[in-house]
């Protein structure tokens, strides 16, 4: 690939991440009942506000790990979006897109826990523990949900998976896997029902002690992860770039933005689950259903 197209691709990915971040912030605020104008302008005003605010630190904080983890959420979202094939173009071409997407979402475990730990304060630590408790619940169904489209396309390459859906989008005959995937996205983006690690009832949890630019990037990273998760769902379940009239990359963008908007609106609208409530349903109900879904896919392929 010539250098200019690499730069172009990187710029497109960054722009996409910023757009998805804004859509998520707006959608979640509207879901929570804020008016369109306020919700759409809030992200810009908040950015100005937090850039002007001073940074702070807490007593005996582990500043290295704290800052590192807070600033890593946004790059993780960028990497996730970079895996998405925009029609024929992929910024990071890999035959293992599904596995890498999974690996990146697991790195979020480390980042969020460290973010809570680093502040050396109760609210953050509790938030970090809560995230791991939720992660154990959503991660297994998410992993098995990723298996279904990979099996149907008999490839782990996101581009191949997108191509395999030219006749029928996977979401049509893998609704359970799609649902489990979306639950996972809400989980690693700390949004909606799975937002307990950043809940108001623990004073903002892992975000409780952050201020200024540190809070800005952590919060933006959280929104961006939801958008990135939705963007990865496009090649996995929503037919990638296929669609009439528009060119492929435009369809990927449109689908990603629509899914992000819907998902973030739903996330803002739903109340938070109390932490102990997730593991039971996730393992006893969702996981067997997803495995059944995988089985159905396997039988159909035979």
């Amino acid at each position, binding site marked *: 690939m010539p250098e200019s197209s690499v730069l172009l691709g990187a710029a497109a990915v960054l722009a996409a991440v910023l757009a998805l971040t804004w859509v998520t912030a707006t959608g979640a605020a509207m879901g*929570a*009942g804020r*008016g369109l104008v*306020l919700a759409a302008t*809030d992200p*810009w*005003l908040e950015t*100005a*506000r*937090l*850039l*002007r*605010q*001073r*940074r*702070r630190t*807490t*007593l*005996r904080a582990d500043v290295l790990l704290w800052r590192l983890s807070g600033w890593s959420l946004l790059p993780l979202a960028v990497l996730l979006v970079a895996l998405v094939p925009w029609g024929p173009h992929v910024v990071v071409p890999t035959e293992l897109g599904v596995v890498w997407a999974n690996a990146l979402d697991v790195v979020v475990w480390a980042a969020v826990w460290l973010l809570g730990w680093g502040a050396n304060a*109760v*609210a953050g630590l*509790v938030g970090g*523990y*809560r995230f791991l408790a939720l992660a154990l619940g959503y991660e297994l169904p998410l992993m098995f949900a990723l298996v279904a489209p990979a099996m149907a396309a008999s490839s782990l390459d996101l581009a191949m998976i997108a191509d395999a859906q030219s006749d029928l989008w996977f979401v049509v005959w893998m609704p359970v896997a799609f649902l489990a995937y979306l639950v996972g996205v809400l989980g690693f983006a700390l949004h909606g029902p799975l*937002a*307990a690690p950043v*809940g*108001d*009832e*623990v*004073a*903002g949890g892992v*975000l*409780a*002690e*952050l*201020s*200024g630019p540190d*809070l800005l990037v952590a919060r933006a990273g959280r929104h961006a992860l939801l958008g990135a998760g939705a963007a990865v769902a496009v090649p996995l379940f929503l037919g990638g770039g296929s669609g009439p009239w528009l060119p492929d990359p435009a369809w990927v963008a449109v689908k990603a933005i629509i899914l992000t908007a819907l998902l973030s609106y739903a996330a*803002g*609208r*739903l*109340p*938070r*689950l*109390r*932490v*102990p*409530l997730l593991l039971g349903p996730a393992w006893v109900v969702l996981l067997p259903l997803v495995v059944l879904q995988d089985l159905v896919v396997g039988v159909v392929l035979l």
Partner: protein
Amino acid sequence: MGLNRVLARAATARPRVHLVEAPGGSPVRWAVEDALEARGWRRTPSPAAADALVVAGRLPDDLRDAADLLWSQLPGPRVRRHVEALAEVDGALDTLPAALRERAAHRDDARERGGDEVSRFLPDDAEDGHMSPGGVPLAEGAEDRDGLEMDVLVHPLGPLLDRWPGGLELRLAIHGDVVADVAVQRAPVTAGAGPAAAWDAVSTTLALAGDRRGAAEASRLRRHGSSTTSADGARLRHRLRRWGRVGILPPAAAGALLAATDTSSTGVPPTDLPALLRGQDLSDVRLLVAAHAPALLLGEAARA
């Protein structure tokens, strides 16, 4: 310079407020909440990201230190407002953006603050210097509810805290986030029973549970003094019942809110807070306290 001014205006257009209630300050807090809502300003759950600290109600002298500690956690630029009467609410909020833009004042404020503002609030009874690095005493172990020995943290909640009854101070011993023991250090002064206080409790609890729409609805009922027999009231009670059933709210919290908003019942039974909170996790403590806020006064009055 022009760009800087535009940015400063954008940054202070909708300040984030950390709103806490002084003992007996509920009516003032309600007025502040309504004023914030009308302006489209939002609150912060922790002081760390706030631009302004607003204390609603008259702060008794023994809580000045607590307010100072909270104030020391605002990163700056920061503004502090003590709103003691309903008439002062609009004036206090209207001047916030301009006060936040006073560059010279904030620069001086930042210069005066030392690097470490927290140490003076730490207990100085930690004798053994090397076992309490930085003045923070080390945690001690005790068995948790599973019989596993875990570190116990002593964690105070209150007396000034976001969405928390004014003046209530709890001292919790927690394992991770499970509350092993609770002691009430200071009793709150709340608005007592009555429809307004009941709907306020619903609003606070739903806001803490992440149901913003329900919380806004309850605030509206509180503002208009609506009775529970109205269609809106019935709808909200139905919502509470549902959240209690699926476990979004702890069943005890949903039950308390339903009892408080039920006009046909004779009143809310007083609450024994420590017994209610022991063994719960930290977030449930917040939800339960918020839901039982109208009954807390009765509990204290019954004891006195």
